[in-house]
């Protein structure tokens, strides 16, 4: 898939392409494509190779997160990379269910590392609240949940699936919001004022007077004169020395030598002692042989079946299963008088981008439950992305479909508005009958 503008990108077509090539210096376009692809639930899509055409000043966040840069006329190299990735994807066990969301993220990251055959090396980014972004992994968790990135990696190391390589940096995170963006400053011990002036202390050897430089400075000359004995200080090391310094607070006029170092968190506004910052090491990670084995053979069934049992709702299917059923349904319509309708529910809301990954997951499952509640038990629903759902209504008629669509629109809008602050949600439902041997385009 070759993408130059946003309108050219269609996530539904990702199944039919080997790789994506983005030819645009626009970071926003790259971000959109990357998000749509990497956040997809289907391994075929989230592991899809993404390349960028070389541009000057292409930011690090693009270079580090794509699978390679290419020239518009030289596609041999990216073809080779794509082949390698596809071969490796072919070896994977495409695990669909995980014991927990965190484990799912960890597993997908391991799949990504295996198919790229490289280490997970974070890159520095001012956009990231952690100041560092782990390619692929951060996108799965989103930056709002950035501390979880470190937690997932710690778990992976503990389980022996990943190993820590070199330490690249140390970050200090706000005690409240865990952001690494803060302004560190010297503050007054007494009033927390930041308007401080530092001065050298001068010690006059001869009479043992010692005080700040201003005690000795003359108003109209550059001479230093001792306020105690009125002698001129001519030579440092002979007449006087500067043994130390002192801070003066212009707010409360207090003097002290050791100011308090505080930080002001740029993200949450917290002001606190820098000793309360939480220190974390940023390390390069690599896949262990145990990790590789896991992505090749998948999880033992008992690991996740029990956990997911309670979440199962009849009629809600994974995307690949849904696609197979759709195919069968197309074939079945040739011999059946009743009509089957394929519907696409799209939830459009800018505010959805501002909520955390965990909240998105919860909202997504709520939305799918609402849709399913208007359908019969044997009707089917699937989730494409957070805001995109498909359903299959079997043995029904257009009036019934329209009636249900209206109710879905009304109830989904209400649900989103009550869950997402400042939401201006718009829900669109399109449905068409499924006809034998015809592609249904929604």
């Amino acid at each position, binding site marked *: 898939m070759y993408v130059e503008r946003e309108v050219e990108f269609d996530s539904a077509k990702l199944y039919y392409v080997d790789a994506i090539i983005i030819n645009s210096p626009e970071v926003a376009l790259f971000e959109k494509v990357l998000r749509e692809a990497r956040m997809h639930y289907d391994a075929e899509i989230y592991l899809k190779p993404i390349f960028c055409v070389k541009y000057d000043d292409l930011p690090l966040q693009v270079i580090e997160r794509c699978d390679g840069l290419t020239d518009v006329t030289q596609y041999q190299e990216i073809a080779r990379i794509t082949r390698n990735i596809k071969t490796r994807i072919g070896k994977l066990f495409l695990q669909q269910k995980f014991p927990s969301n965190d484990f799912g993220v960890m597993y997908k990251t391991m799949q990504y590392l295996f198919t790229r055959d490289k280490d997970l090396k974070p890159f520095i980014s001012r956009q990231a609240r952690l100041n560092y972004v782990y390619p692929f992994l951060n996108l799965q968790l989103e930056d709002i949940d950035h501390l979880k990135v470190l937690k997932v990696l710690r778990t992976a190391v503990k389980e022996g699936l990943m190993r820590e390589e070199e330490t690249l940096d140390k970050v200090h995170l706000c005690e409240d919001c865990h952001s690494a963006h803060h302004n560190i400053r010297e503050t007054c011990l007494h009033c927390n004022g930041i308007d401080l002036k530092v001065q050298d202390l001068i*010690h006059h050897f001869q009479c*043992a007077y*010692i005080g700040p430089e201003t005690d000795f400075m003359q108003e109209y000359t550059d001479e230093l004169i001792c306020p105690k004995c009125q002698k001129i200080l001519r030579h440092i090391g002979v007449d006087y*020395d500067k043994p*130390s310094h002192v801070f003066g607070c212009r707010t409360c006029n207090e*003097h002290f*030598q*050791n100011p308090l170092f505080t930080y002001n968190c740029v993200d949450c506004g917290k002001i606190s002692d820098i000793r309360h910052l939480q220190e974390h090491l940023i390390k390069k990670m690599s896949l262990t042989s145990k990790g590789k084995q896991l992505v090749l053979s998948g999880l033992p069934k008992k690991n996740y079946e029990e956990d997911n049992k309670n979440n199962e709702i009849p009629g809600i299917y994974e995307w690949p299963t849904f696609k197979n059923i759709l195919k069968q349904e197309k074939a079945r319509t040739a011999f059946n008088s009743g009509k089957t309708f394929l519907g696409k529910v799209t939830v459009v809301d800018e505010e959805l981008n501002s909520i955390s990954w965990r909240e998105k997951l919860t909202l997504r499952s709520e939305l799918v439950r609402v849709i399913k509640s208007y359908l019969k038990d044997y009707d089917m629903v699937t989730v494409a992305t957070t805001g995109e759902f498909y359903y299959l209504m079997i043995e029904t008629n257009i009036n019934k479909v329209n009636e249900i669509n209206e109710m879905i629109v009304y109830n989904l809008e209400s649900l989103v508005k009550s869950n997402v602050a400042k939401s201006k949600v718009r829900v669109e439902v399109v449905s068409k009958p499924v006809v034998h041997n015809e592609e249904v385009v929604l």
Partner: protein
Amino acid sequence: MVRIFWYFIFFEFGRYVVLEFWVLFVYWLGRKKRAEDWENARQALRNEMPLVSLIAPGKNEGKNIFKLVKSLNEQTYQNVEVIIVDDGSDDETPIIGRNLEQNGLIDKFIRNDMRGGKASAANLAWRYSTGKFLLHLDADCSFDRTAVENIIIPFYLDPEIGGVGGNVKVRNGHVSLCARLQSIEYLKSISVGRIVTSYLGIYRIISGAFGAFRMDALKKVGVWDIGPGLDGDITVKLRKSGYKIHFEPKAICLTAVPTKFSKLWKQRLRWSRSLVRFRLRKHLDVFKPHKGWRWGTFMGFVENVFYNFVLDIKWYIYIIDMMVNFSSWIWFLIPMNLALYMIAGFMQQLSVSLWSERSEEERVLWFYVPFMVFYVAFFLRFCRTIAYFKELVWKASYRDPWNPQKSSYQALKNGY
């Protein structure tokens, strides 16, 4: 009899037994009036409640600072600011000091990365003090709960008082014989001796371990000059500026003294050298009539120089006199002199017991009184003699490592 024991009778017994007992008796008679005045002064202090700056300059005092702060936190008088100056320590003092400051246990911790000497450290603390009165403390001291209040009250007894000396006693007297002897010495020369000199108006040293000053008086005299002996020096400066100096026996401070004679020897060499440096050189003008000349200051100097410097020389003359003129009596004279000094010692110890608020705890010291004869007559006297000689001939105090060389050099060059 008088011809043989003239030294003891005229100088030792007369001064340290007869005169002291007489003054103490008169002092005792005035106790009711003093108690009334004291109560009025205390009320005046409590009505005003001025801020008192407590400063503790020092080097490598890390191990003592916390104990000092704890002792200060227990004080009955609480309107204080505590300022600790670290004069270029190379131990853990900076860490401890900063920690205390950050936790609000002291008000200021100021460190000089380069050592400037005790005087400059004290001056730095003074520079950032904001109290009406300033208390100079040694970091290895601890204080009775009422010490701060009791040392400030005398300023309300007489507005002309510029400085008050505290009653310094020995805390670690039990550690060794050396420390025990110093316990007795401190009790005699400070706890009782300074009541007498203060009463007579010739009190001459506000101890650096525990001394209080009026802030404006300190400013007027130009705070501390380079030591050693800076506590005696500033007392003279205050006297010369017209301020009265007072000793307060109720303001009690406990200090740690050297526990080995070798260390004590070095300390006393330093102290003794300062007599020559400050009394006989820097403040020689006290002996000459001039504007601001005072009898009290003059007599204090005379007493100090006579009893320490002149009698030190006279003692050797006495020994020679005895050996030349009474050589056949020498085996009688030595034990007789020792016995007389011991008797005088016990009499002084009696006066200590009558005045001390810790006489029960100090009862054990009676056993050590006989040793004081040897300690005072030989150890301290030889130490003083050597110190005077070295200072007079070589100005040894300017080479004392107690001060950094850069300061001592300038002090020598400019006659400080």
